[in-house]
């Protein structure tokens, strides 16, 4: 029920983001969602793509530090209060959310949230049991 997210280490210096995304472009990788966590000196670029393995290979070939991380992709109805229910559920069930970021798909009426929690598999099951849509890897890669 979890999907693979690329995490790329980048130094905070001009042009790095462009270089990373150009490598993905050259390898014909399609980006589904993207987010950056940054500190003063470095950042972690997190990307959901259509072909994670190929993307990792392309980035490594360019000497970049990259790992695959399992995250959950949750489909949420695009209306007020829908997202808060999901977050409340995770909190009540004792899941520790490391980070999250959202994107909107071409499907009308749905937003998607990528969530990284400590125990991803269990969290995905809990969300699913409470009626939330959990996206399978194939669905997301084929979007």
């Amino acid at each position: 029920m979890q999907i693979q997210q690329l995490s790329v280490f980048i130094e905070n210096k001009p042009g790095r983001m462009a270089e990373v995304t150009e490598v993905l472009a050259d390898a014909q990788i399609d980006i589904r969602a993207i987010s950056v966590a940054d500190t003063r000196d470095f950042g972690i670029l997190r990307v959901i793509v259509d072909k994670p393995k190929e993307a990792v290979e392309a980035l490594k070939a360019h000497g970049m530090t990259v790992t695959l991380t399992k995250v959950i992709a949750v489909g949420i109805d695009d209306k007020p209060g829908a997202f808060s229910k999901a977050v409340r559920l995770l909190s009540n069930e004792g899941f520790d959310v490391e980070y999250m970021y959202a994107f909107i798909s071409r499907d009308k009426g749905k937003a998607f949230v990528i969530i990284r929690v400590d125990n991803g598999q269990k969290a995905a099951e809990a969300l699913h049991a409470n009626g939330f849509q959990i996206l399978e890897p194939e669905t997301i890669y084929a979007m």
Partner: protein
Amino acid sequence: MPNYYEPEIECASREKLREIQSKRLVQAVKRCYENVPFYKKKFDEIGLKPEDIRSIDDLPKLPFTTKQDLRDTYPFGLVAVPRGELARVHASSGTTGKQTVVAYTQNDLDVWSRSAARAIVGTGGTKEDFVHVSYGYGLFTGGLGLHDGAEKLGATVIPVSSGNTNRQVQILQDYGSDILCCTPSYAMYIGETVRDKGIDPKTLKVRIGIFGAEPWTEEMRREIEKALAIKAYDIYGLSEIAGPGVACECEEQAGMHVQEDFFFPEIIDPVTGEQLPDGEEGELVFTCIGKEALPLLRYRTRDICSLNHEPCKCGRTLVRMNKPKGRTDDMLIIRGINVFPSQIESVLLDLGMDPNYRMIVDRKNNLDTLEVQVEMNESMFADTVRSLEQVERTIADALHSTLNIAAKITLLEPKSIERSEGKAKRVIDRRNLG
């Protein structure tokens, strides 16, 4: 069975060595006094006559020679033979200021290449071996030093020189180099390149590495030995005395045997100038007792190490020096604490990290600051900011507990620190600029 190039010297009794050394010292002192105005003046100033030096025990009577003396007499002021008798000149790499020029007669080159040949044989090299020299050729003594030593031995030299790392690896593979000679930092880089190309180092024929020209640690030795599937040996030398081969480890890897029939070593207290006994760390001082063109007396190397006169398991009686921690002029004084770059390297390797780092020293509000930049590798990388900050804290804590110094740690992308093909530049000291 151990092999020696010149067993009658390398395994001679201490008495015999002393006899050779005393005889040669007397000649060297006479040569200096009669041919080098600088030395005549120095002797006269302290009322010392060449005849006062009768044996190696009289060494402490002699004045020291310093790098500054070479600079003051630049380029050829300390040369003891007429210009026409010189066979070659080299120059120091100028890592610590203005370059210094050194000169050799044909006999001097012979002394040096014999030393380098002994060094190669000491590491297990033979005349059957292909010796791959990746030190830079030119004014720097590294390239030609090992080159001449290997030729003297009758081995086959591959004079690759430094640079073009892909070609270095290609040659290691295709020519079947048996012995690799370069700086330890370049050996690491070659090792990385081998790994990046997906080559199993065990498939390379190379079995011996002879690395020097910069201080390196035991941890670094283990890394290089693993990366290239070789035995790595430390070689020591400096152009003022000759070049690489002044001292080198034998197969025991238990200290570097000094070619003391040509280069007589002492350890002194760098402040008082007093000789220190075996085992005590101090500044290494050399007297050239077998050279003609530049027979420096009590030359202060600024390298910090100790000596050991115990006979070695390999059978050699030649005194051993341990790995210099660094030059006194590589030493940084940060908030009153002495720090050698090699200590940072040790800490990183102990933590299982790659020794790819750079130190940036600055002064802010009259307080020294140290930033240590460390390259990331995959094993250190995790997806969260929290865990990367933990990596930074781990390094900072380890530096603090070993060196007692607070450092700001900055993680860099892999390969972002420039790889050196010669001596690695590890320190950027901005304190002197303002």
